[in-house]
C-alpha cells in the first residue's frame, strides 16, 4: 500500500513536471512561414567566411557546430553530444547519433575532420584559419561517431571556438560531389536551404529531422533583401514582412510606440578608434589615453544612435561578464582637463594635426568621426577627416594605412580570448597591420589560453583588460544597441549579447502567435 502511494505520487509529480515544462515553452504554436526583411543581399553562403552580421544570421539557419551557447554564454552540446579530455591537450568528441544533414545523411567523424581541414586550408579564407592552425596539432577519426582533436598546447579558449558559426560542420560527401559552399547550403540546422534568388529571396523550410527535439516551430523562413533601411522599416510597418534586422536607430522610438511591433535589443558592439603607433604622437600611450578621455561618449550615444547606445568606460567586455569587474568598467571617464594634461606630459601641449579615417558608406561611422573631430578640437588636436568608401577602408585598415580610424568592434564569442583577434601582435587584425606590439599583452593573452582554472583565468583577464585600457591601442567608445524589429506576435527570437559570431541558433525557437 505504501509502495503504491509512493509510486502514484511520483507519477503524479512527473506528469505535473511535464505539463509545467510544456507550459513554460510559452505554448508555442507550430506552423507559419516567417518573412524577414534582411539588411543585405548575402554575398555568399559559406559558413567559414566572415560575411557580415546580417549574412551570418542567415547561415545560422542551416548550420550547426559541434557546440553552441546558451544566452548566458555557457557552452552546450550541439552536434557533439558529449566530450571528454583524457589530458589537458586532448578532446574526444562524441557525435550525436541522431544528427543528420538535410539530405538525410548522418553526421560522421569524417565530416567533422573534413570541416576542420577546410578551415585549416589557407585557400578557404576561413575566419578561424589562424585560430585553428595555431591551436590544433592533429585530428584523428576514432570511429564513425568519435573524433579526437589534439592541441599543440593546452588551450582554455579552444572549446569556445567550436561554438562559433565559422566552425560549422559540413557534409564531406556533398562537397566532394561538386557542390559549392559559396552558393548552396548543406548543414544540420533547423532550416533546410531551398533556393537563393539573388536580390529577391532566400527560402528555407523546416528541417523535420532536426536533432533538437520539438524544434523548429516555423514551417519555413523567407529572407528578402531590403538594403535601404527606410524601405525595410516601411516593409515592417506595412506588414509585408514580420521581422527585420538592423532597424535604423532614428525610428526605434516610433517602432516601439506601436503595440503591434517590438524591438529585441542587445548592446554588443562598440564604436572604436584604432590607433596606428607609426604615427608619431600615437606611439605614446598617454596620447591615446588623452584622446579617450577627451571624447564624451554620451554625445555619440545621443547624436549618432539617438540615445540607443551606452557610454563605455571599460573595454569590450560588457558589465556582468565573468572576466571583467565594475572597476574596469569605470576605468575611463569623460575628462578633457585630464586629456590636456596627458597631452602636455607626452610633449604635445599645443596638440597636433592628424587624419581620422572613417568610411562614408555607413552613416554611423561618418557621424562618429564628425563628433570626434569636434571634441578633439577642444583639446587642441586638429583632426582632418578622411572619408573613404567601404572597400577602400577595409583595404587600408588591412594594410595599416591610416593615422587613426573609426571602426566598429565587439565580442565575437563569450570567451575573453577574443581579445587576441584584435590586439595580439602577430594575429590581431588591428595590431598586426600597424605593428602594434605590447609584450605584456601578448604574454597575458597566452597565459589566458594556457590557464584552465576559471578563477585564475578571471584574474588574468582582469589584468589584461587593465593593460589594454592603460595602453589603449583601441579606444572603446559608445556600446551601441543592436536591434531586431519584429511583429509582437513573433516570439522566441534570441538576440545574443556575448558574441555576434557565436552559435545560439537564434531562430530555432521562433514561433508566430497568430
Amino acid at each position, binding site marked *: 500500500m505504501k509502495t503504491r502511494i509512493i509510486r502514484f505520487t511520483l507519477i503524479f509529480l512527473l506528469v505535473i513536471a511535464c505539463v509545467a515544462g510544456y507550459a513554460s515553452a510559452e505554448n508555442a504554436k507550430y506552423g507559419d512561414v516567417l518573412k524577414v526583411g534582411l539588411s543585405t*543581399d*548575402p*554575398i*555568399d*553562403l559559406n559558413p567559414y*567566411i*566572415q*560575411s*557580415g552580421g546580417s549574412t551570418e544570421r542567415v547561415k545560422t539557419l542551416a548550420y550547426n557546430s559541434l557546440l553552441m551557447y546558451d544566452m548566458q554564454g555557457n557552452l552546450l552540446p550541439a552536434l557533439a553530444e558529449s566530450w571528454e579530455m583524457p589530458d589537458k591537450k586532448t578532446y574526444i568528441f562524441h557525435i550525436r547519433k541522431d544528427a543528420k544533414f538535410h539530405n538525410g545523411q548522418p553526421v560522421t567523424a569524417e565530416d567533422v575532420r573534413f570541416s576542420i581541414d577546410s578551415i585549416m586550408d*589557407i*585557400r578557404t*579564407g*576561413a*575566419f578561424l*584559419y*589562424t585560430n585553428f592552425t595555431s591551436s590544433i596539432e592533429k585530428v584523428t577519426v576514432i570511429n564513425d561517431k568519435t573524433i579526437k582533436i589534439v592541441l599543440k598546447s593546452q588551450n582554455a579558449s579552444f572549446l569556445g571556438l567550436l561554438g562559433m558559426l565559422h566552425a560549422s560542420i559540413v557534409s564531406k560527401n556533398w562537397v566532394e560531389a561538386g557542390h*559549392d559552399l*559559396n*552558393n548552396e547550403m548543406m548543414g544540420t540546422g533547423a532550416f533546410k536551404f531551398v533556393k537563393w534568388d*539573388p*536580390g*529577391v529571396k532566400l527560402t528555407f523550410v523546416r528541417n523535420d529531422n532536426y536533432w533538437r527535439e520539438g524544434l523548429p516551430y516555423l514551417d519555413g523562413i523567407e529572407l*528578402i*533583401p*531590403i*538594403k*535601404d533601411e*527606410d*524601405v525595410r522599416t*516601411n*516593409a515592417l*510597418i*506595412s506588414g*509585408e514582412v514580420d521581422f527585420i534586422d538592423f532597424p535604423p536607430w532614428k525610428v526605434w522610438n516610433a517602432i516601439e510606440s506601436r503595440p503591434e511591433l517590438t524591438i529585441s535589443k542587445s548592446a554588443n558592439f562598440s564604436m572604436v578608434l584604432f590607433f596606428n603607433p607609426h604615427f608619431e604622437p600615437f606611439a605614446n600611450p598617454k596620447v591615446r589615453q588623452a584622446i579617450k578621455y577627451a571624447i564624451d561618449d554620451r554625445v555619440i550615444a545621443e547624436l549618432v544612435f539617438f540615445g540607443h547606445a551606452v557610454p563605455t568606460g571599460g573595454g569590450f567586455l560588457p558589465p556582468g561578464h565573468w572576466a571583467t569587474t565594475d572597476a574596469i568598467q569605470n576605468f575611463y571617464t569623460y575628462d578633457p582637463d585630464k586629456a590636456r594634461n596627458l597631452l602636455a606630459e607626452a610633449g604635445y601641449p599645443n596638440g597636433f594635426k592628424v587624419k581620422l579615417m572613417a568610411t562614408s*558608406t555607413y552613416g554611423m561611422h561618418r557621424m562618429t568621426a564628425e563628433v570626434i573631430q569636434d571634441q578633439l578640437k577642444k583639446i587642441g588636436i586638429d583632426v582632418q577627416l578622411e572619408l*573613404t*568608401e*567601404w*572597400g*577602400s577602408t*577595409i*583595404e*587600408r585598415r*588591412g594594410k595599416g594605412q591610416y593615422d587613426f580610424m573609426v571602426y566598429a568592434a565587439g565580442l565575437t564569442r563569450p570567451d575573453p580570448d577574443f581579445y587576441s*583577434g584584435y590586439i595580439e601582435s602577430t*594575429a590581431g*587584425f588591428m595590431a*598586426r597591420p600597424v605593428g602594434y606590439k605590447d609584450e605584456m599583452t601578448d604574454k597575458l593573452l597566452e597565459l589566458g589560453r594556457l590557464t584552465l582554472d576559471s578563477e585564475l583565468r578571471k584574474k588574468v583577464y582582469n589584468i589584461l583588460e587593465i593593460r589594454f585600457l592603460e595602453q589603449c591601442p583601441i579606444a572603446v567608445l559608445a556600446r551601441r544597441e543592436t536591434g531586431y524589429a519584429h511583429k509582437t506576435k513573433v516570439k522566441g527570437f534570441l538576440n545574443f549579447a556575448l558574441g555576434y559570431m557565436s552559435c545560439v541558433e537564434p531562430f530555432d525557437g521562433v514561433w508566430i502567435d497568430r
Partner: protein
Amino acid sequence: MFPYALRRIVLSIITILIIFTIVSLIIYIIPGDPAYIILGDRATPETVAALRTSLGLNRPFFIQYYDRLKGVMRLDFGKSLYDNRPIGPELVNRLGRTFELIITAMILSSLVGIPLGIWAASSTKFTDLLISTFSIIGLSLPSIVIGPIIAFLMGVKWKIFPSSGFISIETNLSGHLAFLVMPVLSLAIFTIGIITRMTRSCVLDNIRKDYARTAKAKGLTGAQVLFRHVLKNSMIPVFTLIGMRTGVMLAGTVITETLFNWPGLSTFLIDAAYRRDYPIIQAVVLTVAVVFVFLNLLVDLLVGVLDPRIKYN
C-alpha cells in the same frame, strides 16, 4: 541606308571595346582589394595572397583583361568572385527586370505625354496652361523626390500596393504587377512631364509652318491638318527624345530600384562596386554600353525611316 548602318555598327563595336578597356583599367586601379573585403577581419598578407592567387587576381592586368575579353566574346561573363555563381544568367534576369521597369515607364509616359502635349498645343489657352503647369510639376519631381512620396502614401499609409519587393511573373502574375506599379509611376511622372513639353513644343512649331497653313487653306479641318501632316513631322524629335530617355533611364534606375527594392541591373552593379566584384562590374557596364550604343543607332535609323528627307550616305 545599309552602308551607313554597317558603318555605325562597326563604330559601335569599337566604342564598346574602348568602354570595356577603360572600365577594366579603372577597376584595376581604384583602391579596394576584393581579397581584403572577402577575408574581412582575418585578412593577413598570407591569406590575401592565397586568395588573390585562387581568384586569379595576382595576374598582370593585360592577362586578366585578355582572359575576360575572350570570355565576353563568347558571351561568358565568368563567375562572381564571392559566391562563384555564373554571372550570365543573373545578368539576364536583372537586365530583364530593369528593362521591364523602363519599357513600361516609357510606354506609360508616351501614352500619357504625347496626347497631353498634342492637346495642349491644339486646345484653348486655359487647357494649355493647365497641362503645361502639370507637366512642369512632373518635371520637378524626379524619382528621387516622387519615389519616397509614392512609396509612403501608396505603400505604407493607404496600403494600395506592397511598399517594396519583387515577385516573378511565373510565381504570381498579379503579385508581380502589384509590385511593378509604384516603381513605374516613380519613373514615369518625370518623363511624362518631359514628353508633354516636347510634344507641345514640336506640335506648336509645326502647326505654324507654311505647309500646315496651306493644308488648312485647301479646306482640311484643324484635326485633319494635325493628324495627317503636323503630327508626323512633330514626332521625330519626340521619338528621338524617347530613345535618348530610355538610354538615360537604363543608367539611372538605381534610385527607383533601391527605393522599391526592385532587384534590377542598377542594384546589381552598385552591390558589385561596393565589394569590388570585378567580373560583375565589367559585365554590367559592358551590357549597359551595348544597349545604349545600339539604342542610339536604332533611334537614328528609325528617324531615317520616318523622315524620307533624311538621307544617310
